[in-house]
């Protein structure tokens, strides 16, 4: 499973589980060390006591060292009931006076340390007769006539009781820790389940919705999830708007196409029964309506293209000047070529953008200017120049212009001016979308002395902007 799709529960449980496990292991180790120390401490006292009770019976009798092993010395060690016990008394000549003479070796401390060692036993672990044995060694200085020196009493017992006590201590410490850990983990799991429940409810709410239901999600959610729900709601709002716009557009497009088609049908019907003169007129009318319909379809196609392209954003280096010329070549019939003039001081206008979209935009601008603003006296002028942070393209005509109050409206699809002069009504909408997706803007101004100026600003580095 990929990490990014791993369940939140598994992530949190995994992290906490690891943490708890590491903690428990550390605690077990600590408890073991502590337990062993504690067990050694308590049983060492016993050993030392045993050694001391033996040491106290040391005496010299006729020049020989005597030990009267007290019954309690070994019996007291049965406080560790299952442990074997060993003892030895070592005389000043390092000879075993009594006891096990093969006990593991032990180096008597140096002379200096002997005084310190007095009365306090020394402890060490060693293997003896197949088992680990803990030993205590106690020294006594003997200074009697006939014998001088140090006598050492060594007492040991196997570690069984110590190990049992250690185990008991460790278990006593670890059992509640483990219990609490498990409890904490289950509480966390429960908490996660409860925390994720709002998400499940949101998911169920969305899952059972009808496709057209774009109402915002009202399910209360934790603060951390609120941005996600806000985003979903915002997205649905936009989706709802664009679906509405699409529906309106389809309705309008159908309506727009119906009118010329109806005219075509009527004129064709009339033409059938006309005399040649009337028929010629009717056919001319049919030709006009067909042209209108063709233009409408062009624009719809152009609009679809621009919409699609603005979504996919295929930006590449291009030349705006060449683009303008191509738009004129493709969009203006040869017979009217004179009516469009290009004014620029640039030889080349490098730009990074979508040539298709920009081309459609230019074609629509020129087409609009020719359609609404044509005057025999003055050609439509397309000018291209650079400014501080991009290109400035203007298309000017000597048409009637657009009143300020109408200027925003004409950018909408299927907009018409007040007088009902209808274009396809898509042209400026296409221009705006194409320019906006390059990070630029379009504005309209009436000219002094009549006419309209359409100003397009295209900033450099359009590829970095996000329409």
């Amino acid at each position, binding site marked *: 499973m990929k990490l990014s799709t791993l369940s939140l529960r598994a992530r949190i449980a995994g992290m906490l589980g690891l943490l708890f496990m590491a903690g428990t292991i550390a605690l077990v180790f600590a408890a073991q060390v502590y337990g062993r120390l504690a067990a050694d401490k308590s049983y060492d006292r016993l050993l030392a006591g045993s050694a001391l009770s033996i040491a106290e019976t040391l005496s010299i009798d006729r020049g020989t060292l*005597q030990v009267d092993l007290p019954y309690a010395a070994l019996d007291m060690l*049965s406080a560790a*009931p299952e442990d074997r016990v060993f003892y030895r008394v070592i005389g000043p000549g390092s000879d075993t006076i*009594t006891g096990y003479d093969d006990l593991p070796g032990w180096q008597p401390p140096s002379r200096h340390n002997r005084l310190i060692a007095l009365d306090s036993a020394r402890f060490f672990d060693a293997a003896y*007769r197949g088992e680990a044995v803990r030993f205590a060694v106690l020294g006594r200085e003997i200074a009697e006539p006939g014998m001088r020196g140090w006598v050492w009493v060594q007492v040991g017992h196997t570690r069984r009781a110590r190990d049992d006590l250690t185990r008991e201590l460790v278990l006593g410490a670890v059992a509640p820790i483990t219990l609490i850990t498990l409890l904490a983990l289950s509480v966390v799991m429960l908490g996660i389940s409860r925390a994720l429940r709002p998400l499940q409810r949101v998911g169920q709410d969305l899952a059972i919705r009808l496709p057209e239901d774009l109402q915002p999600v009202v399910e209360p959610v934790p603060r951390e999830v609120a941005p996600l729900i806000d985003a979903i709601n915002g997205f649905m709002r936009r989706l709802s708007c664009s679906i509405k716009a699409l529906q309106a557009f389809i309705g309008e497009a159908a309506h727009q196409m119906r009118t010329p088609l109806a005219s075509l049908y009527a004129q064709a019907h009339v033409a059938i029964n006309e005399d040649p003169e009337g028929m010629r007129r009717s056919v001319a009318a049919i030709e006009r309506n067909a042209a209108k319909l063709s233009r409408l379809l062009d624009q719809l196609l152009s609009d679809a293209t621009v919409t699609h392209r603005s979504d996919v954003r295929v930006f590449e280096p291009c030349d705006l000047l060449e683009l303008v010329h191509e738009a004129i070549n493709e969009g203006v019939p040869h017979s009217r070529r004179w009516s469009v003039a290009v004014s620029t001081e640039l030889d080349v206008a490098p730009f990074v953008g979508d040539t298709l979209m920009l081309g459609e935009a230019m074609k629509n601008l020129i087409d609009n200017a020719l359609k609404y603003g044509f005057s025999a006296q003055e050609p439509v002028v397309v000018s291209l120049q650079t400014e501080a942070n991009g290109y400035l393209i203007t298309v000017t005509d000597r048409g009637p212009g657009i009143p300020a109050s109408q200027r925003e409206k004409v950018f909408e699809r299927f907009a018409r001016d007040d007088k009902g002069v209808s274009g396809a009504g898509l042209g400026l909408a296409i221009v705006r979308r194409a320019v906006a997706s390059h990070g630029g803007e379009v504005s309209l101004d009436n000219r002094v002395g009549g006419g309209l100026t359409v100003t397009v600003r295209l900033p450099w580095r359009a590829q970095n902007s996000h329409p």
Partner: protein
Amino acid sequence: MIRHLRTLLVCAVLAAASDALAENYPAVGATVSSHLTIYSTTDTAAFQAAIRHFQRLNPGIAVRYKELESNELYEQFLADLTRGQPKADLLLSSAMDLQVKLVNDGYAASHVSPSARMLPSWARWRDQAFGLTFEPAVMVFNIDAFAGRALPQTRGELIELVRRDAAAWRGRIGTYDIANSSVGYLLASQDARQSSEYGALLETMGSAAVKVERRTGDLLAQLETGDLAIGYNLLGSYAQSRIASGAPLAIVYPRDYTLVVTRTAVLPASAPNPAGAHRFLEYLLSIEGQRTLANNGGLPAIRSEAPAQHTQRGIIDAAVGPLRPVVLGPGLLVYLDTQKKRRFMDVWGGAVGALD
């Protein structure tokens, strides 16, 4: 080569000789691996019934029961080991201290079973030493010798009795020779530990020229004939059997305190047939084994559940004073300490042998 042969021959002869001392209980279809060798301090007669019963329950196991003195048993076992030829599968000894020493020195294997857990805690140590019987150390009197006089019930009364008429009891008191009897030494050392009157008792017995024997049987035989009138610190079980067969003896559990010892089983780690040994030990610890030992061998059962004639319960009812079981444990090692033992023997020998 010839010398080797000769050595082998000598060994074979010796083995045959030692075999002569052992009681063999052959089994039909027994293989080498199903031979069980037991070293024991208990009279063969007391164990016969138990072994037969065990063999009925476990057909195919041949048992070799070798009777030894307790010191002998201890030394024989170690000697076998030193030779690298361990023979014993099970060691049964009334010398609790020597058995404890074997366990302490690491020669024992563990035997864990529910039956073993049922033993009183003083009668087991480390899952390696197990008490099989419940045997008080008693005073035994020849009734005829007392002729209607009251029997002393405590050590104090015994001391007083003897002191009052030392001449009358001279040579008529018997006890174990602790130099040669391990159980005698065990009992004497425990007396020394438990009783403040022990010194006086020893002195009194010494002054009355106490007679010492290494075997209980010898002491009881002399008590029965009247050569001895007083037996001190004898294992009650043997006396009980003699009374049962009509001997004019009386048993007194000392009222000041009565020591209780137990025949102790140790399963050597070196046992050639450990499976058989575990099985036999388990049998001895089981209710059935305990009952057989008590009813047919006169060895009082240690498990209180064993419904036998001479059980721990029966003895507890009979004894008036406190029972002091000798605890199986490292404390018993103290009197095995060479210096301690030498000193103790010196004192004992001095008292007992002084006026001999």
